[in-house]
């Protein structure tokens, strides 16, 4: 790796891949970054490859196919997904099977899954006596390609460090001052299982319309999980706080009962604000006289602003005239401006 080149492209080497009739350039670099902390755990420095400018339709499988000659890939994470907390593990093709997910496919409702996972963790760590949360039946999700913004990036973690360095060796650093050809392009592999183009859109259309019973099962289990979480939360809150927060009291007819007792002047359930005791007392006492007093005072102050002295009256008139003139001048200036742009030649 020539020092100069690494400087000029921020340490990236170029890995050309060949398309139908052209070359696409992928930039690769060994992962550098914080040696400790969250990211260091996620991306072990010695076996992670940071890839820039991936094709927009790249899948994890395609990435592993591309690097097949170098070694096995533990996981491939597309940063644009991770950034938004979406489908962190969508692409982990090789390592997926061993996951605790139990073969559940992901996609539609990652956040729900996340919740569930957290839940599971919580349940494992906490007391075992509590009811286990219901399992969510997820909506079917065939392995469809997801298109990402062009020029996106990914982290690829290899199983061992040697694979990573082999992969880096595939790419050549650009020698800026010479015309020597960069490494021979590798063909871009295609994941046959994930259709493209017309077939992709047909599959997408169909997959977005799952059978009714699946949807029902999904909805019911999701709501079951939600109920479970709510109950859990309520219990936890009651456990730790003297305030009875949590769910509002709903009577048989569906009306919410607004009662004092929530936290900070809120009703139970936290939805509605409740008047303070002081205010209620005041209302009861009927301090209306005071209110009337206040309004009279206000009226008085208003009248004070009116002209009282003769000079004020003059001033007022004068200002009115000045305003008039100012408006006139403004109009005039506007018309002059229009005139200058030859607006007034009707034909």
């Amino acid at each position, binding site marked *: 790796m020539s020092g100069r080149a690494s400087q*000029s*492209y*921020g340490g990236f080497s*170029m890995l050309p891949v060949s*398309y*139908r009739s052209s*070359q*696409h*350039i992928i930039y690769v670099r060994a992962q550098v970054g914080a040696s400790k902390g969250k990211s260091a755990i996620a991306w072990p420095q010695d076996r992670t490859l940071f890839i820039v*400018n991936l094709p*927009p*339709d790249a899948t994890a499988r395609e990435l592993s196919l591309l690097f097949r000659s170098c070694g096995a890939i533990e996981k491939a994470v597309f940063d644009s997904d991770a950034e*938004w907390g979406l489908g962190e593990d969508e692409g982990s093709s090789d390592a997926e099977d061993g996951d605790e997910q139990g073969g559940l496919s992901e*996609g539609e*409702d*990652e*956040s729900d899954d996340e919740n569930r996972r957290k839940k599971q963790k919580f349940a494992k760590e906490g007391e075992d006596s509590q009811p286990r949360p219901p399992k969510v039946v997820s*909506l079917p999700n065939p392995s469809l390609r*997801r298109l*990402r*913004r*062009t020029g996106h*990036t990914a982290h690829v973690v290899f199983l061992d460090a040697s694979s990573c360095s082999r992969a880096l060796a595939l790419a050549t650093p*650009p020698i*800026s*001052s010479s*015309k020597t050809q960069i490494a021979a392009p590798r063909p871009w592999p295609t994941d046959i299982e994930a259709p493209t*183009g*017309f077939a*992709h*859109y*047909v599959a997408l259309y*169909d997959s*977005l*319309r*799952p059978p*009714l019973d699946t*949807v*029902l099962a*999904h*909805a019911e289990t999701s*709501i079951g999980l*939600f109920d479970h979480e709510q109950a859990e939360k309520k219990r936890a809150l009651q456990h730790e706080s003297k305030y009875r927060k949590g769910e509002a009291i709903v009577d048989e007819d*569906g009306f919410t009962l607004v009662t004092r007792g929530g936290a900070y002047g809120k009703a139970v359930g936290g*939805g509605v604000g409740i008047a303070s005791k002081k205010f209620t007392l005041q209302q009861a006492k009927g301090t209306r006289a005071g209110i009337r007093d206040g309004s009279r005072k206000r009226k008085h102050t208003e009248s004070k602003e009116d002209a009282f002295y*003769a000079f004020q009256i*003059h001033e007022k008139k*004068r200002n009115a005239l000045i305003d*008039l*003139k*100012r408006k*006139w*001048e403004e109009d005039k*200036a506007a018309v002059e401006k*229009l005139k200058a742009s030859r*607006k*007034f*030649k*009707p*034909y």
Partner: protein
Amino acid sequence: MALNLKRKRRPAPDSVFPNKKRQLVPPEDDEFRSALDENEFTHDQEEDEDEGWSEEDPVAGDGMNELDEREDGEAWEGIGKGGARRGLSQASHNGATKNPPTGQEVRVIKQAADLFRSSSFKLQIDALLPNVRPKESRRAALDSFLLSLHSVISAAPSIPPQHPLEAARSLLSPASDSASKRERSNGKVKVKDESSAPSVAIAVPYAFPAPPEDANWKVSFEKPSEITLVGSWANKVGVKAKDNKPWIVDIAVEMPSGLFQEKDYMNGRFFHKRAFYLAALTKHIVRSESGLGVEAFYQSHGSDPRLTTLLLRPTADEQLVKSNAQVRIIPTLSSQSPIPLSKLSPHRSNFRVGRALSSESTPTIAIDTPTPLYNSILLLATTPREHLLAVHSMKQDFPAYGDALALLRVWANQRGYGEGTAPCVRGFDGRGAWWNSLLELLILGEEPVRNAKTSRKPLGKGLSSYQLFRSALDFLARQDLANEPTFVKSKDGHRFSPQDYAEYAGPVFVDSTSSANLLSGMPRSSLGMLRHDARVTLDILNSTDLTNDPFHEIFLKDHRSLATRFDAVIRVDLSGSKMRNPSAHEAVEYGSPSNAVLASMSTYLQRALGSRVHAFALLHTPPSSRPITQAQPDSLADIYIGLVYDPEHAWRLVDHGPSASDVDNAEVAAFHELWGSKAELRRFKDGSIMESVVWDVKNADERARIPLLVVEHVLAIHFSLPRSALHSWQAGFDEVVRLPPSIVSIHTAAGHQAGFKAAMAAFDDLVKTLKSLDEDLPLSILSVSPTSEYLRHTSVFNPIAMPISAVSSFPICARFTPIMEAVLEFEKSARWPDDLRAIQKMKLAFFERIASALMGAVRGLTARIAVLEAPQDSAIEDHACLELVTPLGWAFALRIWHAREETLLTRAIDAVAQIPKQFQQDHAEKFRERDAATSALALYTRRFIHAPRHHRAVAAFGYRFPAYGGTVRLIKRWLASHWLLRGHISEEAVEILCAAVFARARDAGGALDPTRGAPGSRERGFACVVELLKDWKWERGLFVPLYGEDGSPPAVTIVAGAAGVWTLSTEFDKEGKMWTACGPDIVAAQRVRVLARATWECMKKAEVGALDVKSLFVHPTDDYDFVVQLEQATLPRYFQNIVADPVVWARRSKYANMAQDPSEKNVVVRPGFDPAQMFIDDLRVRLFSATAIPLPKVLEMMLTGCQSVYSDTLKIFYDPLGGDRFGAVWEPSVRQPRPFRVLNHFSSAPVMRKDGEKGRERGVVVVNEAAILDEIIRLGHGLVIV
């Protein structure tokens, strides 16, 4: 500077507060005083200095002294004229207006505000007027020319009496001149060259019918008894004509009384003598050796040879040529002539047709049919002088007369009531005198002829020009000039009593000199048009909305474009026209047979169209001057008939005639005469039996064409004009919003429902069914609000039902079924979970319940839940809908509106507001949630709040304005075919934009009123919107009162770099970004403007030639960097393409016996499936993903960047209506080599440096175009043709 300050301050206390009491002065005023003193002090110093350098620079010093002098003067005099002027100039000079205005100024300002519509209106009028008046500097040259002309005319030799035809022959080919010397050069006769060769052929413009061979009277020429400068030039009330037509200087030459005999008023003898007189005078001028340097032409107003005048165009004097003035010579009749004017009363018959036209006369014509037109045209020969005097005294007495007249004429000229090169309303050329006396009528009042109460009272003298102009419009709008005779109040009674006019059918307007009927020969339809225009303008002036300055609309805008002015325009080729009953009498009365044709055309059309139109007009280019070798004016080749529909009656299917029980045979006969064989006796449901005409139409398109059919029918039977002689472009517009016939025929053969009405009925059925499901649903349904363009008459194509069973019989490229969307609202309930994610799941459960209930209730209905957009979007957004296909084949999508979502989303957004900055890092999760909530809230607002409301408003708007829906459809089609709709401009934005041209129609109260000048046909609506787009400054925004309420236009805030630059605000969307937040961006907006301009030009050309409407919809693709061709056969919408090729779907029926492809045996129905659109959406920014709320930067990136592949690299343009190609342009920035960055957001390739070049530190990359193209091909595999 100090000097200026001083001058500004000083007059203030003196002039305005002269009696200021010192003892009451409060502390503030003391400050003021001291400031004053200070200024005075500095001023004194200045003055010394001034003197100091005035010695060195005398010029500057003089100026200063002058200033000082004036200032001193003011200190003593207080308010003076100079003060006012100076005050103004100072203020504008300094830009500060801290001192109060002087009394004079106040007067001027108050006057402007009180006497005019607004002060700025007055200023604009003041700015306008000098531009329409002749330049004073040019007068001198003209005056000297007129002087020499006078001497030339006075020197004209007399010609002894001759037989008229012989005299004409001798003028045409003077025997005395040798033939070799004669020279004609395109009719232009160069006087200069031929001063020595007086051989000029001159035709005598004898009126129709030409003098007979056996005429026993003679024509002769004497020099005029009087030569007077008359008309607008003499009175200095001339107004510039349209299209740079020359100024006309009228000269009246009085023919000596000796030339005439008493009986000359009979049988056109006067006109023959006048024609000869004119020709003789022409000859003299043309060959005179004075070297006037003129070209001579004949001109006949209204193509009437009796009104022929001589036009002299100076060619020699450069000054004169520059001034663009022409001299018109009008022979007049002296008041002492032997012709008794009393014989010219309108009820008298002065042309005995039988005798005069013995050769071709038809014996049926009554000998003594009155000839009012003939009489009044004869009378016009006496008027020029009288009018000159009348106008002069008006001008003297009413200071505003001249200005008001100028305003009126400018207004009229802009609307084609005058002369110009564009088609003008027939009958208004050369009617200058009428405009004058119109104002005269307002000022003097109306002669109380019928009863004193209804007649108009005179106006006061102190009116301003604007008020006078306005009352003129008011008069034009109120008075039915076409049918009510109008008499200006005269000093001593009118020459002919109103009863004399009773029998005359045409419009009557007699001025104060009582000389003649100034409106004689004017088609009534033209006056109706004038009335309509006056009404529209008056409505604009009456509107209380002061924020919109109407000045431009009224005076500066050219309203002559036929396409935006008339709902239907028909160009008629007159060459084959022939009256059914040619009447010699009419030909004589109207001056020529072709004029008679036009006159009766106007009458017949008026009767046939009746209440179908507010107004209609015959238009043509006013006849230009003709060479003096041509006796008769050119007959018109083409005329235009423009119709302004009355939306209430225009599309009536039956025209009722007189009832059969009527004994009045004349009425029945007239009805039959008008309609010919189309008139039938019919019995109606209510039992009445009536003569009637029924128009058979098959569909809405044909129905919209009924008024055209009426015109066609009338012209065919009365003027034997075949359909091929008529051109209108309506049919072309119908075609672009219609599906190809081969596809439609499959649908009609299978009996599928189609059309908006059927779609709405299907929707209503669905709603009924849903409401009947109450038992099966946990909550009852409150409302179902449609939000689809198919349910509000604004989708480009008629909706067509496609039953599932029938889908397989359609080729793939014609399978698209539109999905109509609606929003469900349930009754309120507290049982909903109070969590956004759970709400979305709850909706799924609801959908499932509805789906199974519906499928149980309705046989053949299929329901599916579509979980859309979920993979990419957050789970808190509304993302699911219920897709239904009814047994008849209508597809609907229902969504659930849960109002609680809004509260929860707002709460999530507000949750982070309190978090202090230093802790924000710890709450990243919350911020991410906030961002998701912001986007979800935007979607919620648009989908559940604005969309249903917009739908209701647009639907209501469409009911009020019948042409609105069609206009939207055309404009949508136009934008789509230019690859802008949906991708750049949302459908809703188009609907609001189109409403703008309709919402201008308001009555005095400000309420929407379709009868006030709104387009009545979709073609006109289309033209109006194109015109709007052409001129619209979108930087300023547009306020559209779509909901019919009052509102003020928005304050437009321009956000730099915003995705959408249009601001279309309505009463409920003050920001105006609801539907335009994401587009069009600046590039697209500019493109719209360019396209609108090109389309406008194209339509303008159509006024003269035939218009191929389709050419307006063909998109030029030269500007794109690349265009990608899609596989037509795989596109379900291809059949909607503007130039769809039937071969594409005809291909598969190659083997007639093979019903269908075996692979398509079990076709999966995919309503709304459009892979091309999905593909394009993947490539570019999705339109609705941004919001009106300014987004946090991160969110914006997520919304616009995450979903689309090439949003930063390419701008993609695509026709959503069956487009089979898409075009793209590279973002200019990515084509520039730029340093390598990890997040460049485009596919890049390194730039190889040349050997000699010095390497910089950072690597440089540029967009990898070839690779991106390959990627697009890969992504669109199966769709893109490689």
